């Protein structure tokens, strides 16, 4: 089949201006997009720059946007990708481009990767020989271990769009992989580090990362697990911890959420500055009768049953 590839070009020597360049090529529909691109470079334009290492769906080095959606190009065939005989190829959205489809991985991912200290730090003495991990622990961290740092989860992340300094799901996945390893002894410190600004509490748990991950790792699930562990240990930004504790206390005592209590307790009763910040929103809500006066929060009918579930769960944590 004859397909036109519209490739985003970027040449730093040409004032950094980017433009699309079209290449026509005759290939089988079963050819991968990456192989077709390689053929274009070999036969038509040796200056075309892109990455692609294993070419067999393992390393994730060939990530780029195919018709606007980030994909591994070695896993996608031309026949599936083409739309009306055309395929557009661009670098991911949130990166600094070096040349054509090659981008700066250092700032996009590696700096954040380093920030989560992606190595095991044992707290006690290390055995001289092999340091074995029990099978059941391996099962838990295997998902996170299969991450190749292709960056597609970061590419899909909703938060990075508004704030490039957010750690992002790729680095947080690595953080999980290390702290869930029984050989690591620094879970408390790691959770405190991840609770700093731009860390795991900035995740909106929108499941975009889960949808984008080609390895089925489910980074959102891992972030939830780390946040649960932090809350259990009372670790987190103070307002986040108060928000959680108030949420849990109101469901535990009444079966459902007492929103007025949640808002006030999150700021803290003894925090006049925080409470004052709420005032404009509260006044607007009262003026529109969105916040009813007087405010009453009654127990749900099954509240005692919900409380029993809470108590049983709390007993398992002791």
């Amino acid at each position, binding site marked *: 089949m004859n397909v036109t590839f519209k490739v985003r070009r970027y040449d730093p020597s040409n004032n950094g201006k980017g433009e699309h360049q079209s290449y026509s090529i005759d290939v089988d529909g079963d050819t991968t997009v990456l192989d077709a691109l390689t053929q274009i470079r070999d036969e038509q334009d040796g200056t075309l720059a892109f990455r692609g290492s294993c070419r067999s769906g393992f390393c994730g080095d060939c990530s780029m946007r195919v018709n606007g959606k980030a994909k591994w190009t070695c896993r996608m065939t031309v026949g599936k990708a083409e739309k009306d005989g055309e395929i557009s190829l661009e670098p991911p959205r949130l990166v600094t481009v070096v040349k054509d489809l090659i981008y700066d991985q250092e700032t996009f991912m590696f700096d954040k990767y380093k920030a989560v200290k992606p190595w095991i730090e044992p707290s006690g003495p290390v055995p001289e020989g092999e340091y074995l991990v029990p099978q059941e622990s391996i099962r838990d961290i295997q998902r996170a271990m299969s991450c190749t740092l292709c960056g597609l989860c970061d590419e899909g992340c909703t938060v990075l769009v508004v704030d490039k300094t957010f750690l992002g799901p790729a680095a947080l996945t690595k953080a999980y992989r290390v702290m869930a390893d029984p050989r690591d002894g620094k879970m408390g410190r790691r959770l405190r580090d991840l609770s700093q600004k731009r860390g795991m509490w900035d995740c909106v748990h*929108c499941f975009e990362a889960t949808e984008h991950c080609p390895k089925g790792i489910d980074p959102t699930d891992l972030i939830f697990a780390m946040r649960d562990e932090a809350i259990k240990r009372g670790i987190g930004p103070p307002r986040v911890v108060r*928000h959680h504790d108030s949420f849990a206390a109101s469901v535990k005592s009444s*079966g459902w959420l007492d929103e007025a209590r949640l808002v006030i307790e999150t700021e803290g009763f003894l925090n006049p500055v925080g409470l004052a910040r709420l005032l404009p929103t509260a006044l607007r809500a009262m003026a529109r009768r969105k916040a009813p006066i007087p405010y009453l929060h009654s127990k749900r009918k099954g*509240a005692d049953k919900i409380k029993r*579930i*809470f108590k049983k769960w709390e007993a398992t944590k002791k």
Partner: protein
Amino acid sequence: MKYAFYPGCVSRGGCPELYPAAVKVLAKLEIELVELTDVGCTGAGVLSREVSDPINARTLAKAEEMGLPIMTICSTCQGCLMQANHRLKKDPAYREQINRDYLAEEGLEYKGTTDVKHFLWVLEEDYGLDKLKEMVVNPLNDLKVAPFYGCYLRRPPEVVVPKGKESRKKALESTISALGGEVIAIKGKGKCCGFPILIPNERNSLEMCGNHTLEAKDKGADAIVTPCPLCHLELDGNQPRAAAQKGRKIDLPILHLPQLVGLALGFTPKEMQMQRHIISTGTVEAKARPKATVQS
């Protein structure tokens, strides 16, 4: 058509306009509801799954006893209940453990047969948009509406959009069209509204709210419609602060899905409690006002 109705905390708390509006619309459509009154909050992604899964299993078991599917009117309730249901259905050993440790004492057992559906999906899949069209007495022909789903009606895909249910990805657009309105496509329709990070990172949260509302406004929308009251809290309640951060006037009305349906079914904006929104819905009310009919 009959459902075990799970209205959720926010429809009577932070968005007290949603519950009465939804109940009126559902009654008009003759969709019968048996409200689940003695069940707990879903956990909303705030509580650990270790405790929210048993609470949700209890809700699912209650509906199972009634022999009814659950209907929600909140994307977040829908997502949390549905994800818990997914875990409980696919892993019988896990379900067994929750039954034994948490539900047995109350004489309950969840067998894994309950389905959970958001009002949007009930309209599109069970009620049918053709039938809805027939019920429209006040087509919203002059209204340009941007859809905004809320994350949990979009993802994770294997839970939310199983095989054969692909029309869910466009259900909001299809519903707006069925009501006579014009769909304004926005890129942010399936993205996060920003509400979940209002506490840890207000700046990022308001940035998201500002981006979505401004995108809809700049594309000419009269309103955004959402099936999620938490998105409503953010896009409506926090819009004034987002506008201040963005340095731009926004003033874009945000409607709950049942309110949009209600206007087309002939309810007044007051009956749909639209006066309780933070952002005035005046422009929507003017454009959705029933046309004077010529008497022959």
